[in-house]
């Protein structure tokens, strides 16, 4: 047994205390008054009895407790033979598993380089394998012997060939800065000199913006093995749109790598447009290294499908096939469908016409008024313009509350009847000679961009019936501070209240260009506030609204309805077309590869050399490990305090029980 702090053994001198206590505690008799000693006979205990130790078991318990306490502070440990205890250094072999490692034979070369790196690790040192892209994944919980690491590498490679495990290139982008900072923390925790071997394609676009993040000062050395081959690569992205629902316009953008072995000449590529396996068009293009070209396939007839999609791909796959083909869903221009509905009150014909005309001006939206006459809200519509009676403090209709709670957006127009008109008479009719009140204040900070609208000619003749409450924010109000446009706060959806009947009697707003602009801004704001975007890059977090289901490109469910209520942001790490299904219908979400990974240009030689040089290893003899320290590391210390501490507790407990029972002495001194 060894001791970390043997000086604490001096506390064993305290053993004298219990000995003295037991030897002399009873030596002085207790003096007490007594009425008469005539019947008392002097009977002092014999000398031998007075001098002998009493309660020896208790003395033993107390002495052992003192010994245990001293040992506890002295931190005893025993040496335990440990093969890994011989390690003088620790090694980390980090393999790049980003998208660019799918190019050519890069990953196979990386595995081979890893085997060589592991073979070069001195026997007795320990190794930890790691895979990295934007994150670093350690393979195995603890550093292991080199031969164990080699087995783990082969096992990981086998699983990787089946598309499983961390040792397979994914679709995310690498981040050398995050890798180096993680290695720096590992070096801090290792307790041994940490030598890192980084096996990567040394991609220029994986360098961090702040180059200082590449510096890991606690690393003993850094070796960078470049497995890139300077291949040329062209990536492809495309977007399709249809203006009339019959024909589509597909725009494909091709980007060439900035560097590569054959960057001396232009890259010739042929782009094929197809649908359901049928080739619809071909276009050839030549790209300069680092260049960008745009191809337009116009007037392409939409396939007969509910969800028309096109396949756009390079005719011949190049170095990185994963960015050579995309599936493009067709979005319909002007398809922003807005449903009109009425609850309780019928919308006046004038109001319906004004709203429809404003929404469909410039083809910015299409109006669906099919459910207007039913008095109910359409189930699958997301954008709503609703006529409802909200005046005199009336509550929002429950179905409208549900629509917003499901993440829907609605503009509610107060269609309630009002008996009086502030200016003039006429029961709601436009008063020709009334001057009306202009707009007095507009909330220009709101994303509705209301400050861009010219409100100068708008006049309000009658006050609205809606009285804002604590949940509301008034966005537009008249000069006499009467609210016109109100936003009601909601955790899920978007809700605007227009304090105006839009029948031409309350104001001249429907006749003014400001109304058309207001409707367009409202629909734009609705779309901008949609919680699920249409396009993401692999690795971007996706924040999901409650009660939706996410389907992978192959149709398998990724996130169930019940899970989204409590789930945090999710990361989609495979490119493709995902489907987000919720109460308000389905939405297609395009997850694209990270364009940084498509640029296979390597890091400049000078920059790479500078990176290496900052972590240049010192000669092995420069910082020799002392022999004593080396010996200390050949054994693993097994601390004994986990055994001593319970022993001490047990001794104290036994001492307490014994003292209370046998001495009839309580701890409070009575």
């Amino acid at each position, binding site marked *: 047994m060894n001791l970390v702090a043997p000086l604490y053994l001096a506390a064993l001198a305290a053993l004298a205390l219990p000995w003295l206590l037991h030897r002399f505690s009873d030596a002085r008799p207790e003096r007490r008054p*007594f009425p008469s000693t005539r019947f008392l006979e*002097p*009977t002092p*205990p014999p000398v031998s009895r007075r001098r002998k130790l009493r309660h020896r078991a208790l003395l033993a318990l107390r002495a052992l407790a003192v010994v245990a306490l001293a040992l506890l502070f002295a931190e005893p440990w025993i040496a335990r033979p440990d093969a890994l205890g011989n390690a003088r250094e620790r090694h980390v072999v980090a393999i790049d598993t980003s998208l660019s490692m799918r190019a050519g034979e890069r990953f196979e070369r990386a595995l081979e380089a890893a085997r060589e790196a592991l073979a070069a690790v001195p026997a007795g040192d320990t190794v930890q394998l790691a895979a990295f892209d934007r994150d670093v994944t350690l393979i195995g919980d603890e550093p292991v012997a080199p031969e164990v690491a080699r087995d783990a590498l082969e096992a990981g490679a086998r699983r990787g060939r089946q598309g499983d495990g961390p040792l397979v290139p994914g679709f995310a982008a690498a981040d050398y800065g995050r890798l180096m900072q993680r290695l720096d923390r590992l070096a801090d925790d290792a307790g041994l000199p940490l030598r890192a071997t980084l096996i990567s394609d040394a991609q220029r676009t994986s360098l961090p913006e702040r180059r200082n993040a590449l510096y890991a000062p606690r690393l003993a050395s850094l070796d960078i093995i470049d497995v890139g081959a300077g291949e040329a690569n062209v990536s492809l992205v495309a977007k399709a749109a249809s203006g009339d629902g019959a024909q589509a316009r597909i725009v494909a953008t091709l980007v060439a790598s900035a560097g590569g072995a054959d960057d001396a000449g232009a890259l010739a590529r042929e782009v094929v447009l197809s649908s359901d396996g049928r080739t619809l068009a071909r276009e050839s293009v030549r790209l300069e290294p680092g260049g960008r070209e745009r191809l337009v396939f116009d007037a392409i007839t939409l396939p007969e499908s509910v969800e028309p999609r096109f396949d756009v791909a390079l005719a011949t796959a190049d170095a990185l096939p994963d960015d050579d083909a995309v599936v493009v869903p067709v979005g319909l221009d002007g398809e922003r469908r807005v449903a009109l509905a009425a609850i309780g009150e019928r919308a006046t014909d004038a109001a319906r016409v004004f709203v429809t005309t404003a929404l469909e001006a410039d083809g910015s939206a299409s109006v669906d008024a099919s459910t207007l006459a039913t008095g109910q809200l359409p189930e699958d519509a997301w954008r709503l313009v609703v006529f409802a009676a909200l005046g005199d403090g009336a509550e929002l209709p429950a179905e409208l509350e549900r629509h917003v709670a499901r993440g829907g957006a609605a503009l509610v127009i107060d269609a309630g009847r009002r008996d009086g008109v502030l200016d003039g008479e006429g029961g709601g009719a436009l008063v020709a000679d009334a001057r009306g009140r202009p707009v007095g204040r507009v909330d220009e900070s709101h994303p509705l961009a209301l400050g861009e609208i010219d409100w100068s000619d708008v006049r309000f003749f009658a006050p609205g019936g809606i009285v804002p409450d604590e949940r509301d924010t008034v966005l537009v109000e008249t000069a006499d501070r009467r609210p016109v446009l109100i936003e009601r706060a909601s955790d899920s959806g978007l809700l605007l209240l227009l304090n105006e009947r839009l029948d031409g009697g309350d104001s001249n707003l429907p006749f003014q260009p400001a109304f058309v602009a207001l409707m367009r801004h409202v629909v734009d704001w609705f779309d901008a506030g949609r919680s699920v975007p249409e396009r993401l890059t692999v690795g971007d977090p996706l924040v999901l609204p409650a009660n939706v289901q996410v389907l992978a490109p192959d149709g398998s469910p990724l996130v169930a309805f019940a899970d989204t209520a409590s789930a945090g942001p999710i990361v989609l790490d495979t490119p493709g077309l995902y489907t987000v299904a919720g109460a308000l219908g389905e939405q297609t979400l395009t997850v694209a590869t990270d364009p940084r990974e498509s640029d296979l240009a390597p890091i400049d030689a000078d920059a790479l050399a500078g990176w290496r040089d900052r972590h240049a290893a010192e000669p092995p003899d420069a910082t020799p490990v002392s022999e004593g320290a080396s010996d200390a590391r050949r054994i693993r210390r097994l601390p004994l305090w986990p055994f001593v501490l319970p022993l001490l507790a047990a001794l104290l407990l036994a001492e307490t029980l014994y003292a209370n029972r046998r001495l009839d002495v309580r701890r409070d001194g009575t």
Partner: protein
Amino acid sequence: MARAATPVRLLRPEVLARLGTLELVARTVVDGLTTGLHRSPHFGFSQEFAEYRAYAEGDDLRHVDWNVYARTDRAYVKRFEGETNTGVTLLLDASASMGFGEPISKLDQAKWLVASMAYMTRRQHDALGLVVFDDGVREMQQPSARPDSLPRAIGLLERTEPGAGTDIVAALESLRATTTRRGLIVLVSDLYADPDALIEALQPLAHAGQDIAVFHVTDPAEVAPEARRVGAFDDLESDALVIVDPAFLKEGYRRRFDAHCEALAGACRRVGADYRELSSDEPLDAALQGYLRFRERRDR
């Protein structure tokens, strides 16, 4: 026919200690006691029948002897010795050993007993005398039937504190030298005296026709002292310091003390005196009632 048990209030010493003055203690003890005994026509220290006298107006009809009236057609009233102004002398031991006992000392209990008896004596219009002694007579109040005899006795008791050693024989001899009339002598002491010497001191008084009652006041810690360790016992009446093993206290001391008590009781019997042990934790009214009943039975 068995007599019904007389209710006793059981005034524990700690209750009496809260009453404050001795007079109040005496009134509380005696009034409660006589309330419980009011059906007894022969209550008092002086129970001996003396003579008949003709009934006079104002006499208590309870004392009319109806048997004589039936035979003679004349009313006669019984007269007891108590009505002849018997002298009652109370001797209180105020030695240092009487100060032993917590929280109620033997002297406290003894003072309450003496005060109660003094009150009872004056209620019966007997002459009251009081002697306070330790190793000599500290105070002596000759028997007197004057109304102020009780307040004087109470005042004397109030002032009494534990003093020096004990010399009961000297106190009794002093009493004998000054007492000429027959009466009742009550000795209240812890009786740290030689039983033979006590016999010699009591015998002349008994021969002189004195009725003697001895109250032996003890304390539980004195009767059965407890000690877990070797103790040094400090004699309250001398400078003696005795180191005693707990084992001796359990056996030897108890045996010796019990033998002493037996010897004292035997000595009292030999001179015809009443002997009664009174513990300092004993309810005083119960002890007093027990003793009076004993006297009643003895005199019957």
